[in-house]
Each structure stands twice: as C-alpha cells, then as structure tokens.
C-alpha cells in the first residue's frame, strides 16, 4: 500500500510540531502496520494525522521505511542452482 505521508523537511518548520511523543511504542506498531500494508482505514487515518504534528514519529516512519527497503532491496537474493532444478525434475519423474 503506497501512502503519501509528509516528509520531515516539509513540516519541520511548523511551530505546533511536537518534539516528544508520549506514546511512541504504539505509534511504532502502527507505522509498521502501514508499511506492511496491513493497516485498516482508521489506523491509516490516525497515523497520518499524527505524522502531521509529531516529530519523533516522522523520524520513526523514515527509519522503519529505510530498514524495510534495506531488507527488500539490498540483501542479495540467492537463486536456485540449475543442477538442483534438474535433480528435482528427474527425481519426480522416477516417482510413479
């Protein structure tokens, strides 16, 4: 699920920005649900509202997103060796 959330730069100038989050553990869980595409509409709306005004949460959002992308894009994907594919296919054929 792709959602557009405010970036820290666009909103950091706002005076009413919260410097401390009193429920960051819950916010973190919610942020992970969103990045995993598992949040409900209500959860999504709640976090979006929070991310307008809470600096620690914005930073948390960027960190979680970055970590997820590191895992998705930067870890090498091992492909199955051709030899193993051939072995499996021939063993299947001798099954019946």
């Amino acid at each position, binding site marked *: 699920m792709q959602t557009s959330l405010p970036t820290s730069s666009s909103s950091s100038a706002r005076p009413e920005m919260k410097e401390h989050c009193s429920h*960051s*553990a819950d916010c*973190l*869980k919610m942020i*992970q*649900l969103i990045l*995993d*595409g*598992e949040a*409900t509409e209500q959860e999504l709306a709640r976090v979006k509202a929070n991310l307008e005004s809470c600096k620690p949460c914005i*930073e*948390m959002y*960027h*960190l*979680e*997103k*970055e*970590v*997820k992308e*590191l*895992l*998705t894009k*930067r*870890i*090498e*994907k*091992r*492909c*199955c*060796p051709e030899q*193993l*594919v051939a*072995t*499996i296919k021939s*063993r*299947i054929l001798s*099954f*019946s």
Partner: protein
Amino acid sequence: MSDTPTRDDRDRTGGPAEPDQFLPEGDSIEQPSEDTPARRYTEEQKYQVFNKEFMPHIDSMYNFAFRLTMDEDDANDLVQDTYLKAFRFISSFEQGTNAKAWLFRILKNSFINDYRKKSKEPAKVDYQDVETTYNSEDAESEHTVDLRAESVSDLIGDEVANALNSLPVDFRTVIILCDIEGFTYEEMAKILDIPIGTVRSRLHRARNLLKEKLRDYASSMGYKEENEE
C-alpha cells in the same frame, strides 16, 4: 498478552487459501489424514500442477532455505526434500490456490523437523524463552531503538544480511517472510502455524532486535570514517 489469538476479520480479497488445504501440523505431513479432500489428479495432471504451480517458486524457496540454514548444501537438501514432499502430497493441494504459501509451510516444517536439530547454530535459542522475555509488558519491551534513517542508509547488503543472520531463527523467519518475500500477516500465520497477533508482535520484536544490530554496524562504520580522516 500478545500471544492471545486475535481474530482479524479484515477482508482481504485475493488472500491466501483456506486453512483446510494446508497440510497437517509437523510430522503428520508424512501421513495426510483420510478426510483430506481427495483431489484426483491423473499422473499427467500431477506433473502439470507441479511444473506450473510449484516450480515457479523455486528461487524464492531456495532463498528462504538459504536464509534459514545459512549453508548452501543444507539449502539444497531442504529445497529438494520440500519439493519431493510437495509432489508426494500433491493431492492435498488445490489447484489455483496459494501454492507459494503451501510450499513455504512444508519447507518451514521440514526445517524444524530435520535441520534445526542438527543445525550448527550455537546453543539453540529457546524460542519460548525469548518470546516470553520480549512479550512482557514492561518498559524494556516497549522501547524504541535510538537510530536515524540516515545512519543506516549507507549500509551495504552484506552488513544488512549479517545483521539479519545474527537474529534467532524465529525472528529471522518473520522478517524474511514479511520483508523479503512479501507475505501478508495472514499468510505468515498459516505458514508458521501461529495466530496473527503473534505474527504482529514477533515481527515487531524482530525489527527491534534487527535495528539494534544495524545500529552496531552503523556506529562502527562511523567510527571507521572518523579514523580515516
């Protein structure tokens, strides 16, 4: 308690198959029960299903096996065993349903039953122990890791992989399934035979552990850079 099964009734169209098409728990995979819905494939259909539905996932399966065992030979054996099992029990697979999740579940059960026992992992972490510790509602489990996105963005693949590999296998598994393979929580619950609530909390804890490892890498990198100047 996050271990309490939470019913998650979110509607997920195109979601995974019904649980009844998943193989029975653990060892019983060797003996599908009598009431397994009989899908009478002809010999020819068996090969068709195998080639069309199972083989396309072999790279993902191999990658999963390698990330679990961290050893190429073990990954080879594990993938081969899984595919042979899948063929043997092909009648309990319903064509057109979630083959990838079905295969991943067999692989994960084979790993637990056959490989984890002889695994080279030092002093196998008692998962129950870890989870209890991390599930306790104390402040420690609710902590957030002090780390900034900018400090991990320069890490290379090997460092991220090493950080992942250093996690206890159950934590590593949820991260692989979710972030690398892109399974939904519901699919993960079926692959791992745990409630969705546990998927969620285990993932949350796994990520906290991972971020701690990443922070170690990031700070040692910063230290190196300072010294080079």
